[in-house]
């Protein structure tokens, strides 16, 4: 399938070029354009990852051959345009557009680019609370910390009872020397055919192939104690293949459009492996990842099939009715992970998306346009169960008291209903008023995540006051009931075995001396799982429940050679339940000035300020 894409596209391109070229030669030259032979060069000092993040010309210093070609031709009802722009081996853009007598249209695009990815040093991982000396602190370590401890006059090779099975210093130096950079290549092709004998139907087909190759950073952490954080390079060898086809037909007042899309994603890069130490802290009961080398930071393969059907009926009195139906199925493969856990119903997770939508738009009188729309979509996740072999232990004293199998709970499964009404009223010759209201209800299958209802009100005025002034101003207000909640936070609120902060901060504490000494064999004494986590009660969310947003844009254009645009956006959102407030201000101006036919200037300035106030729940325990 992969090779056939290249051959198919190459063959189509060659055939098309030959046809056009032959026609052009036969009917005298009508091809114009330009060709450039060039050289590009790049030199960089210090860190290239930000200054050349989206790589310009090349990622390493040196020179590259940089040819360019632009060809265009038009002959009767046929035309083609070819553009080749190469600035470096991985900074290229190519495009081909062909229109053969308006019967066959073909568009091909090919792009190559490089992107420097983030590279954390992990230097900040050693921070911990000064007073927190209970329980062998400091216990957050990195490869560099282990390497430094081993270099002490009296070498230290274990922290909190945890040791590593590799040379931490060598691993640290090797990881620091990694270049995290990814090359993205994408080729897209779309073709339309409208046969003269069937002029009201257009058939279309498309192919897209995208690859990402390179190295990214993957960071993993071991549970205490110690809590070892380390990074390693992850090979990226991703491939996305898409093929689609469909047809658009116009039958009198009815227009129907059908599209089918099939997409596959695969990652052929090796999954990184890291060493997870034996968790020395007895409260880390019955972990899945400890005392061994385990794969982590996997990217699963997936497939998607999608059908889309849309229909529109144009009725008299400027009225139209549209309807749409979309169904897609996504399958994510977990076959590579069937070691630490097993899916009991097949090794794939399946999601189905189905949506229905409709809209009626009409014009009432000369000045009012009205539209009503509604849609409903459902995301359904196939049930499954997860089995953890590590929970089955032979010793009865160390046996996990619960089952070794958990039901799979999906946070994605939901039903969403949307209803909206929009009205556009012409206040004057070149001035319109737009009013809109939308209601959205999200009903999630997972009860813990609840239901969210959003009411949105919008108003805007757009006007061309005279030849020189035009502008628009808009305002939006949203009222959201129960935005998507995060995990419960806080420690020990309301637990009878806890006590309140005597300094009146509102926080609650456990005194660990009040608990039985944790053991690795008695789950009732692993008080993290039995007391700390279940007693978290404070609501958390990073989403607002009230939003106000205003936008303004105005353009002054006193002549054809001058224009100034002033724009501004202000957004204020809040959620009193979690003491969250955020204000965003983005004013800006852009100018265009061409005093004569020889000189033109463009200038722009944008200022962006955002202030956020919120509460934080910080667990001041062990790093």
């Amino acid at each position, binding site marked *: 399938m992969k090779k056939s894409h290249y051959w198919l596209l190459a063959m189509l391109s060659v055939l098309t070029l030959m046809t056009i070229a032959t026609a052009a030669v036969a009917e005298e030259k009508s*091809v*114009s*354009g*330009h*060709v*450039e*032979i*060039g*050289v*590009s*060069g*790049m*030199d*960089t*000092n*210090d*860190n*290239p*990852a*930000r*200054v*050349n993040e989206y790589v*310009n*010309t090349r990622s390493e210093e040196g020179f590259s051959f*940089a040819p*360019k070609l632009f060809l265009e031709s038009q002959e009767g009802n046929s035309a083609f345009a070819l553009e080749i722009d190469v*600035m470096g081996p991985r900074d290229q853009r190519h495009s081909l557009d062909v229109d053969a007598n308006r019967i066959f249209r073909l568009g091909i695009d090919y792009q190559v680019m490089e992107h420097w990815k*983030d*590279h*954390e*040093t*992990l*230097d*900040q991982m*050693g*921070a*911990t*609370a*000064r*007073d*927190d*000396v*209970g329980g*062998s*602190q*400091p216990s957050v370590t990195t490869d560099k910390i282990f390497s430094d*401890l081993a270099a002490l006059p009296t070498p*230290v090779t274990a922290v909190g009872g945890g040791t590593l099975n590799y040379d931490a210093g060598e691993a640290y130096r090797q990881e620091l020397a990694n270049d995290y950079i990814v090359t993205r290549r994408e080729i897209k092709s779309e073709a339309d055919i409208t046969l003269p004998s069937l002029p009201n139907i257009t058939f279309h087909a498309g192919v897209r192939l995208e690859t990402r190759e390179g190295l990214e950073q993957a960071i993993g952490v071991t549970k205490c104690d110690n809590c070892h954080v380390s990074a390693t390079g992850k090979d990226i060898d991703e491939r996305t293949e898409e093929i689609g086809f469909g047809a658009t037909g116009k039958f009198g007042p009815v227009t129907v459009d059908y599209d089918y899309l099939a997409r596959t994603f695969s990652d052929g890069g090796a999954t990184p492996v890291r060493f997870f130490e034996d968790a020395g802290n007895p409260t880390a009961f019955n972990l899945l990842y400890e005392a061994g080398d385990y794969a982590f930071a996997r990217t699963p393969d997936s497939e998607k099939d999608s059908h889309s059907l849309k229909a529109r009926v144009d009725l008299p009195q400027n009225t139209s009715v549209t309807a749409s139906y979309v169904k897609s199925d996504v399958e994510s493969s977990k076959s590579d992970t069937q070691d630490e856990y097993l899916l009991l119903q097949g090794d794939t997770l399946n999601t189905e998306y189905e949506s229905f939508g409709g809209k009626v738009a009409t014009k009432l009188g000369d000045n009012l346009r009205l539209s009503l729309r509604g849609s409903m979509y459902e995301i359904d996740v196939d049930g499954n169960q997860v089995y953890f072999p590590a929970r089955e232990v032979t010793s009865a004293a160390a046996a996990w008291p619960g089952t070794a199998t958990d039901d799979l709970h999906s946070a994605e499964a939901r039903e969403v209903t949307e209803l909206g009404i929009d009205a556009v009223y012409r206040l004057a010759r070149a001035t319109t008023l737009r009013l809109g209201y939308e209601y959205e209800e999200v009903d999630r299958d997972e009860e813990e995540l609840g239901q969210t209802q959003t009411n949105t009100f919008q108003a805007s005025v757009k006007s061309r006051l005279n030849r020189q002034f035009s502008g628009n101003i808009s305002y939006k207000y949203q009222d959201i009931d129960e935005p998507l909640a995060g995990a419960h936070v806080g420690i020990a609120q309301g637990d009878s075995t806890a006590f309140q*902060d*005597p*300094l009146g*901060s509102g*926080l609650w*504490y456990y005194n660990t001396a009040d608990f039985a000494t944790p053991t690795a064999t008695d789950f009732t004494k692993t008080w993290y799982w039995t007391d700390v986590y279940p007693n978290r009660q404070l609501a958390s969310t990073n989403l607002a429940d009230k939003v106000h947003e205003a936008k303004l844009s105005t353009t002054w254009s006193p002549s054809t050679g001058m224009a100034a645009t002033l724009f501004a956006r202000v957004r204020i959102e809040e959620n009193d339940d979690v003491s969250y407030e955020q204000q965003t201000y983005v004013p800006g101006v852009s100018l265009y000035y061409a005093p004569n036919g*020889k*000189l*033109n*200037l*463009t200038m722009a300035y944008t200022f962006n300020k955002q202030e956020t106030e919120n509460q934080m729940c910080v667990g*001041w325990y062990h790093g």
Partner: protein
Amino acid sequence: MDYQATEQLKLNAGFTYNNAKDRWDWKFSERAPLYPQNDLSTPLADTGIEAAGQYASTNYDTWEMNNQIDSYSDLAYEQFQVTVGGTYNFTPSCYTTASLTYDKFISDEMYVYGDEDGTAYYGYLGFGYRF
């Protein structure tokens, strides 16, 4: 900026400047001592809970330093980019074009990615033919 200097020579130039700052202010009321006998103004060595060896207090942050934790999220950078270029037409069909860009990233406050300072120069020289 685009400027047709003469009939054969067209020049262009551009300048971009970015200045970004981020600050986090920690509104934190003094936390309660984990051990009732501790007064947080008491040096750890005097509390009776000082440990030895790798767990000695000298190995990690004091509470005054922890109260500066919000400075970790102070971010600041500046970025300059200057481009100059031009196209010279020898004849209506033959031309040469060149451009040079200087790009500088100055990381005024480091974040978790280390020292991100960097400069880059990009150049292009080409000979073209129009038909």
